[in-house]
């Protein structure tokens, strides 16, 4: 499989502080890759290293076949970056902001492209309003437009859904999925553990180290499911593996009896599972 991003033994030191410790991971083309971890885990540093804003202390980085430091100008035409803060000019309109960042790239029909990205994030009717009057969620959408304006092959999104309401969060993930379906690779960081479910693959980062890499499904399967059974009016609970096979085996053991009047299965939430993984690593 082609990799849009290849990272090998990446380390970043700030004086005596080790911000990233020997990170190795590959991101396939056209996927939504989630970088999950608590605040201070090193997510932003890793993204900044990938966009060429942070120079690695050691290790190898390859983004679209290019080195983010040595080939930064060529690379920056092919990547889009949305920082954690909105990073917009509040005294300019949404359209003026997008046009300004668009003009840094060679884009044909920039005006038309601006209208298209505004339509994509459903902000056409607010295009000429000052960003200062926008809500946090709207600013995030304008910020996404600025990152998208030059049709990048990879989008680096640093906490794109932080501090926005659940409805807008879902809307944002739907937009990200649309982009991935069109062939764009998305590298998204988040400290919201439940957002792992929206990604194709997830890396959990803690204290600058990778502590888990897997698909959201596999991560869920590494958790437990609590089975509550009401048999002859007596309620009992059992903890089983969160796999479809685990549930099937347990039901087989129980057998189908008329005395069993209720069965409910409560799997661990992905948030709990990720937090447990992080806790285990903290203990070790």
């Amino acid at each position, binding site marked *: 499989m082609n990799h849009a991003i290849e990272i090998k033994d990446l380390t970043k030191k700030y004086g005596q502080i080790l911000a990233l410790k020997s990170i190795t991971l590959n991101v396939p083309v056209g996927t939504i890759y989630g970088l999950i971890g608590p605040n201070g885990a090193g997510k932003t540093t890793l993204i*900044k290293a990938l966009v*060429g*804003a942070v120079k690695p202390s050691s290790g190898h980085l390859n983004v679209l076949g290019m080195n983010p430091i040595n080939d930064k100008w060529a690379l*920056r035409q092919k990547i889009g970056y949305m920082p954690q803060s909105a990073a917009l000019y509040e005294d300019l309109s949404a359209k003026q902001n997008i046009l300004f960042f668009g003009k*840094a*790239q060679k884009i044909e029909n920039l005006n038309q492209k601006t209208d298209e990205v505004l339509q994509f994030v459903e902000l056409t009717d607010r295009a000429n309003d000052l960003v200062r009057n926008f809500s946090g969620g709207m600013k995030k959408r304008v910020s996404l437009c600025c990152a998208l304006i030059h049709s990048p092959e990879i989008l680096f999104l640093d906490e794109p859904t932080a501090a926005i309401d659940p409805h807008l969060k879902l809307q944002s993930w739907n937009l990200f999925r649309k982009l991935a379906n069109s062939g764009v690779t998305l590298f998204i960081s988040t400290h919201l553990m439940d957002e792992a479910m929206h990604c194709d693959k997830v890396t959990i980062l803690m204290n600058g180290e990778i502590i888990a890499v897997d698909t959201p499904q596999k991560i869920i399967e590494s958790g437990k499911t609590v089975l509550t059974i009401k048999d002859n009016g007596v309620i009992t609970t059992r903890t089983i593996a969160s796999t479809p096979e685990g549930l099937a085996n347990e039901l087989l053991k129980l057998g189908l009896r008329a005395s069993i009047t209720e069965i409910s299965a409560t799997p661990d939430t992905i948030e709990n599972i990720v937090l447990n993984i992080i806790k285990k690593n903290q203990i070790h």
Partner: protein
Amino acid sequence: MKTFIVANRVLKQLKGDKRLLILSIVAPLIIIYFLKLLFDAFPPNVPITNFTIPIGALVVHFLSFLLCAILLVQERTKGTLERMLIGGYKRSSIIGGYTLGYLGLATIQAAVVLIESVWLFDLDYSYNVLILLFFVIWLLAVVSVMLGIFISTFARHEGHVFPFIPLLILPSIFLSGLLINTDELPQWAAFVGKCLPLHYAVNIIHEIIKPVFLISETYFDFAMLGAYVFLLWLCASLSLKETE
């Protein structure tokens, strides 16, 4: 080309921030008016014309520096500067764009300060002298913008700019020759004064407001102001880091 795009954006941003725009034009007007009130209270034998335009130049110098430094620090704290660099704008375009953009405002400041000073103090200068005076104040504003860009690299937030005010501006008032000739200062203080760009602007102003002046007497001071522009541009370019 990208330099003009950045400059255009800076101007649009300044135009959008009406409060800042009005304050940065009205503030020097008020300061010059206060200066008039102060000088009116002086005994008639004090040669106030020697101080009027140099103090006007200092006001533009100070405001241009402060405004540029603070707005650039805001760019850093809000992440737009980093976004520009990652988005494809080069350092040279950013510094060039900022210089051009803020110079638009500094030009207006230089013009209003000069016009108000001439009007309030009833200064009788020829057009040639007025044009030269405007050019000196404007050139000093270029130095201030460069200084603002350079100093902003040492500040993590707006508050960090303020310690530079007593460090840079107050020595300019006391040691640059604005109030007394630098030759009358102790040697070390005169040396410090001669390191300040305002010293050369004051020298030029003092020369060209003489009833008869020799333009050749100002060449060295103009060259020094030009050297400041180049040096500070170089320092600002080198200190604007693209990578951490």
